[in-house]
């Protein structure tokens, strides 16, 4: 790893963040709102990518980590009167705790069994939310009042419901998780995760505690996803059980596959791609799922490693 390539890699990621920052001023209202949402969901996808793309663990239950952040912060605001930053931390804490417990149990399995076990945990989680509908609002969900979504720092106060603030807050979260992910995958720990994905038995026989490394990956992934969930609650003011449903476990997988698994920018590209294909298709026809499906089939046929996986193989080999 030469210094030049390090500078190039960080330069590229900085440039992406700068472009996203510029979009705040350039995008028309509709797309501005859509992009704020996309940035939060791309953060969710980055959390998923760390576990799926790098460590090679396919989870079908990541909606529960997103929802842990969503409900952790949403319930803390609604019932405990937490401020915005305390609620965000509460969301992260819930995600960390849940991912630790789920990781300890689910990592006793691997492969298909791991998929099923994570999916079962997520189902239990969503059913728990619906069961306690007295507090969680069940499938109706909870709406967070605008008054509770104002971030005060010293004397200044930021209204997270204002479009520009919301966009920039989403971008800040996205940028932090992007650079943390980049640092992780370029670290020794990141290389061990890739080694586990490629050949776990060999990695163990090089003296690595593969269970501990995988557990760390599950928890980091869970915390990133919970951060996205908590931000979603705070920025968009809605906490609902549909975010804990199986659909939101499949979506991050789809975004990551479309953008390119095990690429740092793939989750962003995939989320933007799927969102806009859906958006454009549904403006023309009610059969938009057919068009989304066709786009995915084409992607699988011609770029099975996702958009950035394709770019990396064809043109830019140094893409992390």
């Amino acid at each position, binding site marked *: 790893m030469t210094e030049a390539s390090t500078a190039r890699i960080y330069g590229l990621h900085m440039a992406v963040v700068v472009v996203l920052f510029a979009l705040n001023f350039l995008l028309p209202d509709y797309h501005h709102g859509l992009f704020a949402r996309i940035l939060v969901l791309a953060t969710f996808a980055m959390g998923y990518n760390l576990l799926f793309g790098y460590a090679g663990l396919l989870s079908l239950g990541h909606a529960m980590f997103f929802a842990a952040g969503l409900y952790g912060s949403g319930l803390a605001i609604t019932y405990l009167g937490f401020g915005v930053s305390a609620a965000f931390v509460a969301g992260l804490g819930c995600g960390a705790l849940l991912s630790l417990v789920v990781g300890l149990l689910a990592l006793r399995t691997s492969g298909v069994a791991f998929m099923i076990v994570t999916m079962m945990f997520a189902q239990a989680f969503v059913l728990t939310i619906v069961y306690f509908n007295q507090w969680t609002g069940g499938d109706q969900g909870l709406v967070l009042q605008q008054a509770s979504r104002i971030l005060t720092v010293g004397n200044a106060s930021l209204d997270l419901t204002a479009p520009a603030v919301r966009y920039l807050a989403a971008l800040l979260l996205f940028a932090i998780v992007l650079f943390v992910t980049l640092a992780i995958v370029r670290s020794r720990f990141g290389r061990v995760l890739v080694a586990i994905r490629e050949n776990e038995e060999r990695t163990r026989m090089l*003296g690595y505690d593969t269970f501990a490394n995988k557990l760390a990956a599950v928890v980091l992934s869970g915390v990133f996803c919970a951060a996205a969930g908590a931000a979603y609650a705070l920025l968009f003011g809605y906490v609902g059980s549909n975010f804990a449903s199986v659909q939101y476990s499949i979506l991050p997988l789809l975004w990551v596959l479309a953008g390119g698994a095990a690429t740092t920018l793939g989750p962003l590209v995939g989320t933007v791609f799927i969102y806009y294909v859906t958006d454009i298709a549904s403006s023309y026809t009610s059969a938009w799922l057919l068009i989304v499906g066709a786009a995915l089939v084409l992607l699988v046929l011609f770029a099975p490693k996702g958009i950035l996986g394709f770019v990396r193989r064809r043109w830019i080999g140094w893409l992390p």
Partner: protein
Amino acid sequence: MTQPLLTTRGLSRHFGGLRAVDSADFSLMPGEIRAIIGPNGAGKTTFVSLVCGRILPSSGTIDFAGTDITNLPAYKRVRLGIAYTFQVTSVFANLSAYDNVALSVQRTLTDGRSRGAVREGAMKALEQVGLAERAGTPAGQLAYGHQRLLEVAMGLALQPRLLILDEPTQGLSDGEIEGFVALIREIALDATVLIIEHNMPVVMQLAHRITVFDAGRIIAEGDPAEIRANTQVQEAYLGAAHG
């Protein structure tokens, strides 16, 4: 008198009714090159897998450098200094040769030394097996013989006290085997080597002592001349010839 580096007592592993390894009493002195030979299915690979912890024994004990490692997980045994190179080449095919070896080196550098130390250690191991020029090549694209050498380099980079090689010369050309024998001799200056090998000329050239397995049991042990003269060993091999 020096203590053995490795001792097994009554070590057994049963798979259902099959006694893959049956009460093996075995000891290995530091600095030795020991070959394990025996017909196919004699339990050689199972035996070394028990030693390195890939499978757990049904009964018996394993001692390594004065520590009872019988119930220790494999990765902890590697940290104590037992390195295993796989019979079926098991490199990380999508990673470069350098990255394969770097994974071994960074494991030994648990004190968080710099990237420079990793590079130095990895290149040293690659140079030792003669793969330095191919450091950037993805492991899966290396020739088969080079992949085997890369396996050995990954083991070497762990700086093991005991290096276990499972049929390392399988599939190598005569020229490559010659280089390999020289390499093992060089490695044995720093480490104890336990080698499973079918190629008898290699065994006879390299081994200080030879242990013979048949049907899960150790049937003979001695220096190469003794083993060559042993009638029981000849029978085991000739007896297995029809199967």
